[in-house]
């Protein structure tokens, strides 16, 4: 039993550490043009705290717990849904032709 618990903790720690490296690696080089949408997209991703909010709302028993959990569900939904929608709106505008710019650079 104790062993099981230990290995679970270590597994979570491994996931945590590996995720740090993945997070660093994935955005290590990104042009300033995309900083704003990237920030907004990452912002939407942490809206997945909605999952946590639903789990605690399921556990909640007293009125206080239920009210706080439901408030968390509302806030998390706003974060997640609003975040993805606003990022998509921003990115719609990038339909432009980034290829042409490269061609122009090679001309010089």
């Amino acid at each position, binding site marked *: 039993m104790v062993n099981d618990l230990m290995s679970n903790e270590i597994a979570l720690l491994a996931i945590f550490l590996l995720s740090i490296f993945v997070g660093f690696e994935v955005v290590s080089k990104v042009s300033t043009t995309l900083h704003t949408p*990237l920030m907004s997209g990452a*912002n939407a991703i942490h809206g997945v705290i*909605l999952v946590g909010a639903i789990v605690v709302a399921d556990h909640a028993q007293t009125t206080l717990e239920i009210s706080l959990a439901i408030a968390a569900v509302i806030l998390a939904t706003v974060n997640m849904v609003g975040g993805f929608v606003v990022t998509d709106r921003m990115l719609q505008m990038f339909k432009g032709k980034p290829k042409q*710019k490269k061609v122009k650079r090679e001309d010089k």
Partner: protein
Amino acid sequence: MSRNLYDLIGLAAGICFILALKGLSSPKSARKGNLIGALGATIATVIVFLYTNDAKALNNQTLILVAIGFGVLVGVPAARKVQMTEMPQLVALFNGVGGGAAALVALVEYLKLGDEATVAIVVATVFTVIVGCISFSGSIITFLKLQELMTTRPVVFPFGRQIIALTLIGILLSGGWVIASGGTTPLLINGLLSLIFGVLFVLPVGGADVPIVISLLNAFTGLTVAASGYVLQTTLLIIAGTLVGASGTILTKLMAEAMGRSLFGTLFGAFTAKPQQSSGEADTRPFKSGSADDVAILLNYAQRVVIVPGFGLAVAQAQHTVRELADLLSKKGVDVAYGIHPVAGRMPGHMNVLLAEANVPYEQLIEMEEINPTFPQTDVVLVVGANDVVNPAAKNTPGCPIYGMPILDVSLAVNVIFLKRSMRPGFAGIENKLLFEAKTTLLFGDAKDSLTKVVSSLKSL
């Protein structure tokens, strides 16, 4: 649904998030990346409802569904209707509510676990409450600053450093109290102090640096989500939260570099800098203001014109008019380009979004490093609603709030035209000496009106 299946699907959602961030880092795949992220989030949300011990509905399921519906009703219209110019503050607000949600999640789980919580869980709970509350109140202040509901200048108060340090000590002590003896009261005190700290921590940050703070708070919220994932023993939350925390930290660093700022200087600069007399004495030299016709003539006989758009252009909704002007000049054989400062607008890349919205051809948008060497061969620079990004004070006035920020060297051009509403300084609140140079012509008025007048007098030339 078995726990294993649930965890496997959760892992798939986590991979969606990695692919989303990867996609968002390149212009071609950015939109697809965001949609993959939304897919991952949807999968993650749906499977929570399906995963119960014996296939029953969740407790409080109706309430939860109503709450989600309400959240969608608030979030989607806000995201759809917001003006592109006001988008940075909306992102700040979304980030703040996310941090608040994470703090509430940890709080509720703590209330429920009571004495059953292990030390590690309590530590994670305290961390979530502290950082979640800081992110929440800090984001609200950035929102107020960007919406200009409060001053955009750094707010420095007497004994600021000491007060902030005391609040921080209070947070640590009350956090230790929670860990040592448990109970709800110390945790609430801890949360309250953290809320106050969030406010104090953002107040001294100058307007131009606010985007860096939003990005930092975004990374904070990511870490909060990861910690609450530990409290709930949910792998997906740990993955998603840590990803955002790590990538957000790198992004914050990249942004700070693009603005030529050190992160430390941004956050604590207002306290370490000596009190400044609004960056030097006010300039009393006369300035030259011209009419739309003067501007049109200057532009008409130029060979090369560079347009430097700033936030004022976006506020006046003049993107389309400026494109009309550029098209007209191109037709007359003038070489036209846009010089885009990395932080033109309110956030890095913001101006690119705003001009793309007005269908300005992508290839005319030239980044700062590329356009700077061309200014000496430029006849006219047309600065529309920008100020700080062309302010030479960033180069030659050590100690001013934007000192060290790379700028567009428009002063090297033969003529500079500023379209401005007034002599009021820019967002960072610093006077621009360039306005008083002999080569500078000022055209006062709303950017859109001014541009429309210039376009019509150009047509009649």
